[in-house]
């Protein structure tokens, strides 16, 4: 798994590549926790490189969403591969996350 991030006008853009599973979900969680410390108003997560996710990974997504909501921030996901989107759908996660087809459409979505 590889996680990179950069500051953008609207908040922080994070890109995740590889698998999030039981063996490494805590790396993802730690990386996301570091971003919270910067009190960001919006996290834009590029999911195009995300190739696999298990329930331990989904749990981290849910935790991030809860934390962002608690601070009035936004967590926006974009460019998800169809197989990953399917897992989100089955979990009932598609209705609680803002998922966009493209980065452009995610960025157009106002963070406030």
């Amino acid at each position, binding site marked *: 798994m590889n996680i990179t991030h950069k500051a953008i006008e609207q908040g922080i853009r994070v890109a995740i590549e590889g698998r999030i*599973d039981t063996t490494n979900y805590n790396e993802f969680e730690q990386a996301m926790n570091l971003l919270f410390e910067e009190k960001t108003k919006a996290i834009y997560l590029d999911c195009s490189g995300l190739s*696999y*996710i*298990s329930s331990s990974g989904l749990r981290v997504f849910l935790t991030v969403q809860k934390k962002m909501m608690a601070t009035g921030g936004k967590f926006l996901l974009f460019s998800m591969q169809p197989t990953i989107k399917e897992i989100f759908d*089955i*979990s009932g996660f598609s209705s609680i996350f803002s998922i966009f087809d493209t980065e452009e459409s995610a960025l157009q979505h106002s963070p406030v």
Partner: protein
Amino acid sequence: MGKEIYKQLTIRNAVDELNRVVVFLEQLEEECQLPAGCMLPINLVLEEALSNVIFYAYEEGSSQEIHINVEYVAPRLVITIKDTGKPFDPTQKEDPNLNLPVEERPIGGLGIFLMRKIMDEISYERLGKENILRMTKIM
């Protein structure tokens, strides 16, 4: 004639052994000549089932074996997991409420639900000292 593949893997009850399962499934996907990516939900199901055994079935520090048996008789994939840990029947777990708003959604409880949603059939039996979990999916 449809394709028939029989494959086995034995892992120890340790988290890093899940990486061997990933490789095992990649090989299986290739051998079964299934479209790339269609083992991904199967990977998820196996990871959930095996994590439950790895984390909860045995006393801490005891090294045990978990046996995974796969039969693919196109289009039917049957995966059997056997362990000798504490009795645990995942088919008896209650489904989480997916209609709850995000603030109230519990963080856990999804794994077994996903197993059920992805597979077409899941059955459990305790035979002697063994947990036998059999999961079927029409690919």
